């Protein structure tokens, strides 16, 4: 029981964090068709900005400025780089952002070195929110979850209830019509890209204070956010939320479970046979927990490429 409750709590929070990072990516992809490879690197940028500003001014200033700086960086990237290569096609844009990811990571390493930096939450947030089965549950995890939920509500309302949201959604489907109606489409594109980057930056500033902040944080996340976006359905914010929660729960449960395919086959009396073969059959679920998201992504891509909530390919 204890295991299940703690796993669910951790999984939900981890999933919400994943959602914070991937929400921007799915918006950008759904609208512009650009699969922004550098997205997780904006998350990393946010964490380092948060770290720097926490040292200079304070945690909350960092939390406020990290999305702004990441958003500005995103706007510049869209305006001066992506727009330039737009007419070469989407593969070219993907490659460009891929090179960009390299550059962002290396510039950050240039200033902060190869080691982890100690980005810490303020001391007054370092307390246990509640105690469950003799385990103290840190308040900061709840804080991260709350920020993510706030972000989701904000995004959802923005996209479905406001004029800006209508234009953005319309531009996803009929960009030329939107332009013909007199809206500045390049500006909308730049805004979405900047907004998506800003969300990643905010996620970085919030999560960096809890999880380790280091040069590897983007690589670790980089492919996982793709999984979320693909599984959730490209362009769907709700799909991204569901996929994030699914993957977060999946990882947090499988980390603690020591079952293998052989154990499973044992239920049918084939356990000894599987154990003799060894290899894949005896790998513990906990050791291959990291492979599971990719397996899921593979299945979704092959069976239902539009994803859970996507409606077109």
């Amino acid at each position: 029981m204890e295991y299940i409750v703690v796993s669910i709590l951790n999984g939900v929070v981890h999933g919400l964090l994943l959602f914070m990072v991937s929400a921007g990516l799915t918006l950008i992809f759904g609208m512009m068709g650009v699969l922004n490879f550098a997205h997780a690197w904006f998350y990393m940028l946010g964490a380092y900005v948060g770290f720097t500003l926490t040292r200079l001014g304070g945690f909350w200033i960092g939390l406020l400025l990290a999305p702004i700086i990441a958003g500005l960086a995103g706007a510049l990237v869209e305006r001066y780089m992506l727009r330039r290569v737009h007419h070469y096609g989407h593969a070219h844009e993907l490659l460009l952002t891929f090179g960009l990811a390299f550059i962002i990571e290396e510039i950050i390493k240039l200033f902060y070195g190869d080691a982890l930096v100690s980005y810490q939450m303020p001391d007054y947030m370092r307390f246990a929110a509640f105690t469950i089965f003799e385990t103290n549950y840190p308040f900061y995890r709840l804080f991260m979850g709350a920020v993510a939920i706030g972000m989701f509500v904000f995004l959802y309302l923005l996209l479905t209830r406001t004029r800006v949201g209508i234009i953005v959604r319309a531009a996803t489907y009929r960009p030329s019509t939107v332009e013909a109606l007199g809206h500045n489409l390049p500006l909308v594109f730049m805004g979405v890209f900047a907004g998506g980057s800003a969300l990643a930056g905010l996620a970085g500033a919030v999560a960096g204070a809890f999880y380790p902040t280091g040069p590897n944080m983007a690589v670790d996340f980089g492919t996982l956010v793709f999984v979320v976006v693909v599984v959730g359905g490209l362009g769907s914010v709700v799909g991204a939320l569901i996929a994030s929660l699914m993957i977060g729960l999946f990882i947090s449960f499988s980390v603690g479970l020591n079952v293998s395919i052989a154990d499973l086959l044992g239920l049918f009396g084939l356990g000894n046979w599987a154990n003799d073969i060894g290899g894949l059959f005896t790998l513990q679920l906990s050791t291959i927990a990291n492979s599971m998201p990719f397996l899921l992504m593979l299945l979704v891509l092959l069976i239902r490429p539009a994803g859970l909530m996507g409606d077109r390919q």
Partner: protein
Amino acid sequence: MSQARNLVLIAVGLAILAIMPLFLSANLMNAVIKMMIAALFALAFTLAMGQAGMLSFGHAAYYGLGAFAALHLMRAVEMKLFFFPTPLVPIAGAAIGFLFGAVFGWLATQRTGVYFAMVTLALAELLFTLAPTWNSVFGGESGISTMRGASWGLSFGSDSHVYYLTLAWFVISAWCMWAFTKSPLGRLALALRDNEHRVRFLGFNTHVARTLIFAISCLFTGVAGALLAIANEATNYTIFSAQASANVVLQTFIGGAGTFFGPALGAATMTFFARVTSDLTRSWLLYQGLIFVLIMLFAPEGLGGIVSLHARKLRPGGWRHLLLPYLLCLVAALPLIGGLVFVVESIHVIMTDAYFAKRAAAGGAWVAYQLFGHTFEPLGPTTWAIPITLLGVGSLLLPMARRVTAAAWLLATQDQPPPSPRAMLSLQHPSRS
């Protein structure tokens, strides 16, 4: 005429590669071996990417599988289970590469474009995350190692034996791939890239064709991996990393995916670049990323594209008009590069822990730092004047060089339309997307 010229060029290149080991130090010879392997990898990758338009983000999977297959074969020989001549070990890599290429390719080629890239990425990541936990096949986190066995009267103890082995396989594979592009299936690959629907209407089974092309690309990727295993005698799961897949993409596009030999050129150049600069500076990945992004922005067809553009467009003797303008471009670029390198390396020195310790010892003062064998004061006027002057001179010269080159290009090609003025680095058209 141009075919004869190409043949002569290839013959000269081969002759140089063949006699090179006589003059190279052991270290450099090793570098050339790695360059050839990287070039072969890039050529194989381009077979799928450049020819058939399948952007694979997980080619390291087949590269790594080829390497592990070769190592297992060599280990079996070493344990005297059976005999297998060392020079033929890459065949194992080829077989495994083709096999997995066919299976994974069958899955991946059901999708196109970005979705195809995602499937290949997922497959490679699956292998990357599985490999360190699967001890019997991939040797856990430490990987597996072995020794090259002697065969055919060759000991394969020295680097020069490995060099000629790699060279032979490189030449054979490159020739096979070139011949493939001329074969009906190779032509079909081009058609698939340009318009898959039409190919399907013509009655071809496009899924099978794409799978086959992908598998052949993986076959040669496996050869490259096996050659790497022979050269290093060891490997571990990091060979599957997204970084390794990324590298070949980078190198191929720097070289130019639209031409046949461009990727090989790019891979060899970047491998050499990495080899040289990684000894000199820790920021070499930054420079590599900058080169990649600049090429993506200004010369989307890559180095090979630039070369082939000149070969196609220049009228006879036209290069005489371009010689001086290109020299001017170089003169404009050098101060820019110099200024950038100075800034990056200065930041690099100042942000190290060693420098922080020095500052702390000096009571927080900005103490002098060493760079390029000189001492600089961080707040001194010369320290700031050097990069500012270099960058200033460069950015003044650059627009001038651009104009001069654009004018010269017109002269050199005459009745050809002028290139886009933005594309200073390449002087080429966005001919195809």
